[in-house]
């Protein structure tokens, strides 16, 4: 049973790696933040599965923490990225 949860956690990590492609290619910074936000939630799910697979219940606190703190990076991105990155790529997808 634990192996199944470990396999699910592995599957989610592969999801994160697949999502990295969008971070590399993403034309404008907002796409990269969207990808980072998805990784945050996928990370929460992976931590929960690992907590079940490795029988260490205190990893759930780490998952709870991740769920809380992902929004702070986005707040920082919104508030402080005053510049607008590559205009040329920007109008490519508008």
């Amino acid at each position, binding site marked *: 049973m634990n192996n199944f949860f470990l396999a699910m956690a*592995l599957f989610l*990590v592969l999801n994160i790696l697949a999502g990295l492609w969008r*971070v590399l290619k993403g034309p404008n910074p907002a796409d990269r933040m969207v990808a980072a936000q998805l990784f945050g939630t996928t990370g929460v799910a992976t931590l929960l599965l690992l907590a079940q697979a490795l029988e260490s219940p205190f990893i759930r*606190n780490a998952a709870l923490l*991740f769920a809380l703190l992902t929004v702070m990076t986005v707040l920082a991105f919104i508030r402080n*990225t005053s510049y607008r990155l590559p205009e040329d790529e920007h109008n490519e997808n508008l």
Partner: protein
Amino acid sequence: MDLVFDLIIGLSLAGVSWRIVRAREHFQAIVLFITFGLLLSLAWTRLKSPDIAIAEAAVGAGLAGVLLMDTLGALSSPRERAKVVISLKLLIPCLFLAGLMAYSILYIPEDFQGLGIVVREALPQTHLEYPITAVLLDFRGYDTWLELGVLLVAVLGVLCIRRTDNIKGTMLPAPAEPVGSWIVKLLLPLMVLIGGYLLWLGAFAPGGAFQGGVVLASAGVMLWQSGHPSLGLMPRLWWKILLCSGFLSFLILAFSSLFYTDQLLTHPATKTWILGVEYAATLSIALCLISLVLGSPARNHENKGV
């Protein structure tokens, strides 16, 4: 099955770090660094050290991202594109170093005994149930004490660069739309609650002063990000007292031991003293980290003229 998981985590960590170095834009590097922090906390979870997974999750997701994003926003160098030509005369020595270290790994003796057993035997004297908190606060109390000193010195350094002695002028205007302020009203009490929970948990389970302090610091940074003025309104005297409270509490405890025992710089093994010091350390860690994030010079308005 475990080995497959380790291989994937190891390869992805190495790949993400290589992409961070090779990223063309700074913003891309920072977002990749946040993912790097996430993968690293998965590695800590796999290596069965929940303490560090919690600390890495709080630091990586909370403070590191905000700090880097702030600095990048303030420097606002939009078209900055790093020249990413691979310079062989740097790559070869790094590869050589990596090869040396990898070669040395193969010679790790199989049967070396860590300090786990020593700590386990000496645990009853400290009246603490959890070995890591015992190591942090009792056996290696000096490290924690001087680490609080390092935090204090970092804050002093930031304040010197700002050439002011408070964080008054760091107010951000409140966000226009309601969601910004609504989310703070909802998440902030939860963060403080979870910070206290982690601190209280430290006595007998993974948690403790550092994790609690970092979570409280993230709560303070979120309060500041939402434009709430309350952080700056803290009276300066209280702010300074709280900054030094962690460092001084260790000192006072260690110094007071001179009066009722003959040695200096030991502290009584009773649990209440140790937990009291831990609670003071949490507050000062939280406030030091908040002042570090808030204290960056480009933000305050009065030294615009300089």
